């Protein structure tokens, strides 16, 4: 029995698999995910990884081959049940916004409120227009709006009927990078303000890191890892996830009593419960290393490449491992730091323990 205190997931996806006709490989494979009330969840992955298909199955535009989906505990797909999209109470914001070109902003927003009495329609529309910062644009037609405005209209339209769940398909991909950062914050705050639950699909880790409470990263239809953005960033389960969130150093290491013996020396860590002497792969982000004068646990290296990246500088430091092979380690250094003769020492900072990869 479910206890009362436990928050009931708004969305429960359980073992959903979908194979398109004429294709051998499933587009979505054994996908399970719970989304809690008020969360913003990101489905992250490259194009073709099945994230949009999953989103469309939640909305009801595709039907899974097997598995089940529950929204607020109600079975919408699975076990021979199928609830039509219009009866799911799921709002959706499309990549192309899908605003009705023959209707004004107000009419677009009002479109899903047809079940309410006229007076209430007006009140709700006015409220959502205020909330989304669209005041004064109500009489315009979609073609008279900018990209960001269109997006806000699309969001307002989806939110107006107070859906249980709002889905956003690549919501920021059509915006230029300046607008993008601003819209991310805005949309996240609107979703939070309206106490909605949101799921969005993206291929951009910046979107995820900025606004998602939880991420599911997908590849070839399979969820590789689920968790908070910082968990995925710092503790990726494999190289693919590690590299998806940015550059990283993948190091061969051996488990010792104090941590891991790596080509860059001993990295101290505990609590991994791995047998001593086991060979493992570690992921260490460049910012976990620093270039320093040598105190302890440091390694002489030669800087072979420098990239100035604004807040920091990315150095490729060449070291030699025990067997004499050369290895480039990426290290972030403050932009002002200068190494004499390209010589330096690199050291693991030790504030974030390394991530053990499973491949």
């Amino acid at each position, binding site marked *: 029995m479910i206890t009362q205190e436990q928050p009931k997931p708004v969305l429960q996806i359980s073992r959903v*698999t979908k194979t398109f*006709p004429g294709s051998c490989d499933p587009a979505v494979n054994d996908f399970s995910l719970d989304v809690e009330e008020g969360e913003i969840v990101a489905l992250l992955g490259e194009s073709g990884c099945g994230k949009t298909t999953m989103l469309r199955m939640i*909305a*009801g*535009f595709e*039907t*899974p*081959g*097997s598995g089940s989906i529950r929204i607020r505990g109600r079975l919408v*797909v699975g076990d*021979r049940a*199928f609830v*039509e*999209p*219009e*009866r*799911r*109470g*799921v*709002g*959706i914001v*499309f*990549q*192309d916004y*899908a605003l*009705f*070109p*023959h209707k004004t902003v107000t009419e677009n927003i009002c*479109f*899903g409120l*047809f*079940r309410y009495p006229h007076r209430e329609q007006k009140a709700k529309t006015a409220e959502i227009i205020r909330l989304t910062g669209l005041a004064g644009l109500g009489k315009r037609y979609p073609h008279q709006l900018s990209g960001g405005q269109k997006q806000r209209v*699309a969001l307002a*339209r*989806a939110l107006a*009927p107070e*859906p249980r769940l709002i*889905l956003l398909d690549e919501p920021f991909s059509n915006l230029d990078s300046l607008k993008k950062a601003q819209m991310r914050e805005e949309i996240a705050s609107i979703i939070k303000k309206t106490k909605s639950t949101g799921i969005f699909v993206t291929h951009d880790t910046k979107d995820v890191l900025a606004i998602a409470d939880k991420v599911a990263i997908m590849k070839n239809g399979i969820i590789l890892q689920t968790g908070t953005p910082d968990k995925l960033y710092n503790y990726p389960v494999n190289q693919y996830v590690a590299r998806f969130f940015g550059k990283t150093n993948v190091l061969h290491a051996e488990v010792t009593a104090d941590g891991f013996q790596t080509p860059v020396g001993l990295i101290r860590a505990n609590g991994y419960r791995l047998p001593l002497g086991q060979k493992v792969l570690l992921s260490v982000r460049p910012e976990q290393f620093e270039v320093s004068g040598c105190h302890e646990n440091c390694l002489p290296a030669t800087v072979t490449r420098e990239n100035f990246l604004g807040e920091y500088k990315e150095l490729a430091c060449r070291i030699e491992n025990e067997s004499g092979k050369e290895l480039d380690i990426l290290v972030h250094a403050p932009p002002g730091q200068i190494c004499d003769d390209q010589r330096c020492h690199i050291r693991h900072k030790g504030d974030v323990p390394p991530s053990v990869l499973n491949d």
Partner: protein
Amino acid sequence: MPLHKFNFGSFRRYTGNRWVIWTIVLSLMVALPLITIAAEMFSRGDAVWHHILHELVPSYATNTLWLLFGVGMLTITLGVGAAWLVSMFQFPGRNIFRWALIMPIAIPAYINGFTWAGMLDYTSPLYTFLRNQFGIDTGTYLFFDIMSLPGAIFILSISFYPYVYLITRAYFQTQSANLFEISASLGYGPWRTFFRTALPLARPAIVAGVSLALMEVLNDYGVASYYGVDTFTTGIFTAWFAFGDTSAALKLSGYLMVFVFVLIFAERTQRGQMRYSAQGIRKHGLTPKRLSGTGGILAGIFCSLPLLAGFILPAIMLIWWSTQTFSLIVDAGFWSLLRNSFFLAGTASLVVVAAAILLAYTVRAYSGRFVKILARITTLGYAIPGAVVAVGVLIPFLWLDNRLIQLPWVNTLLITGTWLALIYAYLVRFMAVGYNSIDSGMEKIPESLDEAARSLGMTHGKVLRKVNLPLLTGATLSAFLLTFIDVLKELPLTLILRPFNFDTLAIRAFEFATDERVAEAAPYALVIVLTGMVPVLLLNKYIGGETS
């Protein structure tokens, strides 16, 4: 099948869904005449059939083949030649020819047929003029007896070459000029370029155009019957009206359908093999080369001949005759006939457009292979000659009526010989016309609009009404207009299925012409031609817009 592989979701979407059920009903309705014909085709015939089979079918087959061959050759010559000239060269009158060359499409072939016969007839104004002024006397007919197989080929070709012209010209337009420029840079002259580069390149387009023209040839009843060329289509009428033999009419329809299917098959395989298009090459439009002097004049003459024969001369004759017989013909009866005819065409077009919207939306909303096959079947009717549709519709309806009349409260044939049967047959025949127009309109509406509306709580019906239809007004209007014209000028199907004593403009014109009263047929024909010009002029506006 393992349970986890069974896609119960999509299964559920199909069963018990009224959109799909209506689409199934529609496709069954269209398939009914074909099923009737197929069922009858392999039955043993009676004595009448054996007479027809041995005495008449051989000449039907020869004539039909000659017509197909002759019209095929002539439409390719006229259509491709004119398309090549107006696409590649600048010569006197080119800008007018570009659009004017499709005008013959506005004149139904049977009207061209009796107009030309009347024009070359002993009493025609042209012949009278030549005889009185210049003493030219060539017997009963001016120059040659047009009421013959070659005459029929000529009439059908000048009526149907625009199909070839239109598609081929559009094809040349989309081809990269580079290809022709390369051909020139390799030392090919214009003739060599035409035969070695343009013609092979345009083959898919030419095949598509010619097969449309030949479909029309198989559909034609008016010209063949008027010119005394016995084909399968006229044979169906003979079997039906002269012998009263339904079974023979069905069997002949079956034979005719064999021709149709061979044609469809040939066109499909041609198109399947050849997907020549210069993709990936940066396209820049053709810059027409200036043709001056003799070349320009010859090009002008080549283009003006089909235009004169297929549109200008017949139109002038129709106007001339109409002024002669105006006071005689245009009375209250004329107007009431006009009203009837327009009302019938309007009703039929409304039904067709409604069905087309239903079908197009179902295909859009339930994009599965099953629904697509249904759509294919439902739009097959345009390939079925009108007489075949009529016979295939009439016979099941007669059967049904004969059952119904045995019920105590029924005392007349309920379906046969009513508008119901007629409109049903128009639906079968012209569904594709409406569907193609609606479908291309729907393709321009992003599907995310539908999905957005559904996620906002709208059912399919509401989505169609509130999102698709408001955005489809143009497509709906053109679907209505095109169907309207097709119904208005339709002859064989209407002749067979019309209610007793019910005439349309087309039938009245044809009957007057058959009674050697061509001048009296002219006002009726003129109304059809003028109405038919509306979509042609709209199409021209589109062609004009496409190049500017």
